[in-house]
């Protein structure tokens, strides 16, 4: 990764989108010693409203804090596709939770990956780790932050006692992402 990199994760409130953005920013900032700014947008609803987590990562000082055109866009709801689908940079990477987001047509000029993050989490018995599964996939596919840094950031950001389960969710997502590349 060189220069400035913008990542946007979007879905609906309750999916852990904000935590996922926080973990990504923390991995870049504290464990890769880059500059990272994490911002979020959400409505007044506690759950169900659309929300997005924006992370800007750079080797330089980051003045403008928001994402303008994400290099990597991660969508975990159909609503998020409507709101944020067009924001992605030409040549960017689009990562979808394939059971929750369907495209009308294949977009041109983008690399599209599909990962069943929520289904994998459900198979593990806990749908709430869908965000961590997705982070694993993003780590493999996005080329933004390294595997070890992300793993540290996940462990550092989740409730004590849930480390093994979350790391196993992260690894499942990472493996799935790797399988898409081979």
């Amino acid at each position, binding site marked *: 990764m060189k220069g400035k990199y913008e990542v946007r994760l979007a879905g609906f409130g309750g999916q852990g989108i904000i935590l996922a953005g926080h973990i990504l*920013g923390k991995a870049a*900032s504290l464990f890769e010693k880059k*500059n*990272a*700014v994490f*911002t979020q947008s959400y409505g*007044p609803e506690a759950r169900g409203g659309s929300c997005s987590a924006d992370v800007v990562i750079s080797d330089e000082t980051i*003045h*403008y*804090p928001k994402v303008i055109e994400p290099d990597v866009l991660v969508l975990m709801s159909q609503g998020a596709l409507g709101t944020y689908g067009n924001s992605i940079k030409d040549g960017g990477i689009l990562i979808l939770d394939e059971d929750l987001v369907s495209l009308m047509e294949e977009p041109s000029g983008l690399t599209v990956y599909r990962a069943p993050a929520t289904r994998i989490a459900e198979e593990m018995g806990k749908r709430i780790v869908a965000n961590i599964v997705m982070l694993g996939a993003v780590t493999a596919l996005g080329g933004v932050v390294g595997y070890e840094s992300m793993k540290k950031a996940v462990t550092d950001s989740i409730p004590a006692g849930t480390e093994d389960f979350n790391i196993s969710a992260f690894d499942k997502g990472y493996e799935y992402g790797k399988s898409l590349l081979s």
Partner: protein
Amino acid sequence: MADRDLLVGEHFIHGDAACAEGAIASGCLFFAGYPITPATEVAERMARRLPEVGGVYIQMEDEIASMAAILGASWGGAKSMTATSGPGFSLMMENIGLGMMTETPCVVVNIQRGGPSTGLPTLVGQADVMQARWGSHGDYGCIALAPASPQECFDLTIKAFNLSETYRQPVFVLADEVVGHMTEKVIIPKREKLHILARSLAKAPKQDYLPFDSSGLLPPPMAIAGQGYHVHVTGLTHDERGYPVITAEVQERNVRHIVDKVRKNAQRIIEVDTVGLEDAEVVVVAYGCTSRVARQAVENLRQKGFKVGLVKLITIWPFPSNLIRDLSKRVKAFIVPEINYGQIAYEVERTAQGDAEVLLMALMGGSIHTPSEIEEAVGEYL
């Protein structure tokens, strides 16, 4: 942990949390507040942290009571703080005036959202700037600091506590939703690297001590409850002992004192960051989250060889009038992007006295400017 007051190290936290850590590092031992988006996370962090350091957290029935409680705690000897946003800041105004009149050190954090009224609870605004300056009735000096990052939230909350102790009055940390909810690396240094001002306590013999002595430009040390001094604290116009004296003569002394301690010390208090002022033909004046957008715009333009500068206000109040006045004699224009319909732009205009043009770039709230918008506005004058 050796020092629970100070989480030394690197953290990835948002501005609200960094304000709370700045307070804890300053020795704040009392927080009273009422939750309100986007300042709730300040209260949340204080609720968790204060019991760890032997402090007291109270969730009050509303913001009027919250402000009253932190004034009382301060006279009880504790450094104290509250945090709120626009609607709560409005409710606090009466007791902010009480704090100014009774010369009570404390810190009020306002994470600004879009207003008026309940406005935009979850979205950014910068429209409480004039309310911070003039919101409570009567004349008083105002100190307000505007952080632009979580690191500055930490640093400037400490500075706010120090200023509140020096000038013995409520001091505002006037952040905005973008900065409050923005998460970045915050470095908390070791204690010996921090400058923390302890409460200056009365030492004079009881018969000689004047708690509201106004003979100097700085207020005297405080006598706190339980120290043994007989102190009367009132919002009424009072003499140097603190006793109400309702005369024009005492009012003259009383009000001049609480205004002049800030006005005549303004050059000591004022802090700005500047870029490119040495050759600037156009200067952008900005604060809070908007100053980061302005910085990006100014750097983009300077890379292309344009002579543009930036004044980032760290203290919004007192306002750096001398700097703006000097610049107005040699620059063509000031560009003032802010997330309101004109507040600091008018202060710049007033100070420039017609010697330079002033362009307000107003946003009503809910979004921030883009660098290219500011670059275009500057381009009009180059």
